[in-house]
């Protein structure tokens, strides 16, 4: 029996249309918009102004607090302006707009493909390097990585978990990266182990990526303390808490962080970025993005500089199919639908998914038939139909008692509901409201 998490879960059709497609580089367009808010926490402070010359890797936004991250230019050229640009949130937020001239990199960056295994830096030096490179969680949450590497006082990491699950349907960017940069990811894992001062790391890979499991198992033997764990295909296994449960059979208690059970989870893409930052002095200026969809001409995996528009990437994959009804940044389960294609790629975008109009609309909801399927699939062991009702009737105290704030918004309930009820819409609303109430009570 393959390992997996113990409560709930679903198994949506994988639809990995771009699996096995070699990572291609996207040509740099004439202009990029690099948002200053590409992470959870305070937006970065711009340190460039109109007319400034920048190179690839030049710092353009400075971290504005403990939970914040640096932003670097992904191109060389001239800063045209700092202006509000619509980003994936749908809001207009500050971005640095750069006119591209050539492709000149900062001298400090090692652009060679040579693998550097040796790392003699201290724990603190590694964390500083990761922080200055502006690395954030690249699986989608965009939480600053260096913060995760500094456990709160009294807490100690015991094991590093590398999230190579990629349980979202359609997405293949992590998978392809793992096939092409296996050793770099293993070195990155070793570096993260050093940063956390742990001797053990587990890389969790879902069983639908057998080639990656084989390749990692083969190479990992020469890296001390790293083990590869194949996992049963099950969504949302890539959820931090679910992955910890699947791999080390510990459940993070309600309201606590993974470190409370001794675990730190990093995404596999993030791990590669850590390798590049620490060993190659390369800040986070590009990432792998899957462009996919049932009617996309050429579903593919590309290496895109941060700040390139969705449109450029979609054009690369053969253009926007005329039947497109929905554009999703990320995967179909947790990704965000966007209203336009001039949105810039940011650090946390793992894929662009184009859904045909015929599948874009939701079906009309019916009355709940109390089949309890939402309860059976909830990976947090919640009662989604009850939480929806409590939100609908604004019974916040009972919503809190029934742990609405534990919801990880994976969408399994709504995916499953035979009555097409908008369960997660309501729960999200109620969760926000209850969190506000809890916050107000603490103050």
């Amino acid at each position, binding site marked *: 029996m393959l390992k997996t998490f113990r*409560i709930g879960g679903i198994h*949506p059709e994988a639809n990995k249309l771009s699996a096995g497609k070699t990572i291609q580089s996207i040509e740099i367009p004439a202009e990029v918009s690099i948002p200053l808010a590409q992470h959870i926490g305070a937006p970065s402070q711009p340190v460039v102004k109109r007319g400034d010359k920048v190179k690839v890797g030049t710092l353009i936004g400075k971290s504005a607090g403990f939970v914040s991250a640096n932003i670097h230019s992904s191109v060389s050229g001239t800063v045209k302006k700092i202006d509000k640009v619509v980003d994936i949130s*749908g809001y207009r937020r500050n971005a640095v707009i750069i006119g591209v001239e050539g492709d000149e990199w900062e001298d400090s960056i090692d652009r060679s493909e040579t693998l550097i295994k040796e790392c003699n830096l201290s724990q603190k030096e590694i964390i500083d390097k990761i922080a200055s490179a502006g690395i954030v969680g690249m699986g989608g949450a965009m939480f600053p990585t260096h913060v995760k590497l500094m456990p709160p006082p009294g807490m100690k990491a015991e094991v590093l978990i590398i999230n190579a699950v990629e349980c979202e349907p359609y997405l293949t960017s992590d998978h392809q990266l793992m096939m092409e940069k296996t050793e770099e990811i293993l070195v990155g894992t070793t570096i993260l182990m050093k940063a956390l001062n742990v001797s053990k790391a587990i890389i969790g890979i879902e069983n639908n990526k057998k080639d990656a499991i084989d390749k990692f198992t083969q190479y990992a033997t020469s890296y001390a303390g790293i083990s590869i764990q194949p996992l049963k295909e099950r969504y949302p296994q890539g959820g931090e*808490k679910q992955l910890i*449960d699947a791999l*080390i*059979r*510990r*459940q993070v*208690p*309600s309201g*606590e962080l993974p470190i409370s059970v001794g675990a730190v989870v990093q995404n596999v893409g993030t791990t590669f970025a850590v390798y590049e930052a620490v060993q190659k002095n390369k800040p986070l200026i590009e990432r792998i993005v899957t462009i996919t969809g049932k009617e996309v001409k050429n579903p593919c995996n590309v290496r895109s500089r941060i700040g390139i528009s969705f449109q450029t990437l979609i054009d690369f994959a053969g253009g*926007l199919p*005329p039947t*497109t*009804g*929905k*554009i*999703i940044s990320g995967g*179909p*389960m*947790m*990704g*965000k*639908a*966007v*209203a*336009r*294609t001039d949105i810039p790629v940011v650090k946390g975008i793992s894929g662009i*998914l184009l*859904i045909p*109009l015929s599948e*874009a*609309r*939701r*079906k009309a909801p*019916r*009355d*709940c*038939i*109390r*089949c*309890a399927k939402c*309860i*059976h699939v*909830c990976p947090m*062991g*919640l*009662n989604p*139909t009850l939480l929806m009702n409590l939100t609908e009737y604004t019974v916040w105290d009972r919503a809190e008692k*029934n742990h609405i704030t*534990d919801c990880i918004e994976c*969408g*399994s309930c*709504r*995916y*499953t509901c*035979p*009555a097409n009820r908008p369960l*997660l819409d309501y729960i999200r609303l109620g969760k926000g409201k209850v969190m506000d109430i809890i916050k107000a009570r603490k103050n």
Partner: protein
Amino acid sequence: MDMETKLVVSPSPHIHSGDSIPKNMYGVLIALIPAFLVSLYVFRLDAVLITVFSVLFCVGFEYLITKFILKKEPTISDGSAILTGVLLAFNLPSNLPLWILAIGALAAIGIGKMSFGGLGNNIFNPALVGRIFLLISFPAQMTTWPVPAVAATDAVTSATVLANLKFNPDNLPSLTHMLLGIEGGSLGEISALALLLGLGYMLWKKIITWHIPTAILGTVAIFSGILYLINPIPLHHPLIHLFSGGLMLGAIFMATDYVTSPLTKKGMLIYGFFIGIITMCIRLWGAYPEGMSFAIVLMNGFTPLINYYTTPKRFGEVRKNG
């Protein structure tokens, strides 16, 4: 291209399992096919007549009530009225006059279902509301059972296994006959084997979980098993209790009705346990030979309370168990 007016923007998730209410309802109907085939073999044309008319009455009443009284979009396409019709028929004797059947269907759909607001809002299992309504209103017609056409005797009507068990224990069919369904009884309840086949199908298709049927059948088996160990008379025989009367039909198809059964697995087990206990109490010490429908409807009434007090097993409650 003017995309801005065409794109759909909605919160995640953006895909759906494709599951639907009709899919579940038709799934249950497929699971009922083996039981129907047995009743066709045993009761011949009467089985078809009662089933077809029960469905027609149920669907017809639901259509008329939604259209003319509630003035809403008709909901009959969801398949639930068809299912209620079949389940009601399966709970009736095969020689029931059609006009009584019509009254039963009206009670099931009109009182049991639509008066609460239709599918999803009813408290009691509609088919059982119909059956109990008829049992109380027409006790004679509801407890006169035609002798199975395949059983070679001269009698025209017979008592059920449970009635014999209680009042005439020397006159029992063999266990094999009970398992296969060669016995007197309601249309769909006679063959335990056919009903178990249906259970297998529903578990395989993930239409229901194992909790309710197992809790009911397990409770009945253990309850009667203990009594049988103390005093081994036919009335206490666990296999007779499992294979006779409406136990299988009730445990597999009636008690598992989504709308009227508890939501959590813990709740389902409690609910099933009490259905088993109440059924056995009525069978052993009550005025009626069979108590399955009363037990289910009673526990339907307790379902909201069970839901209130049972919560799913939450993530993180089992801390660091490894």
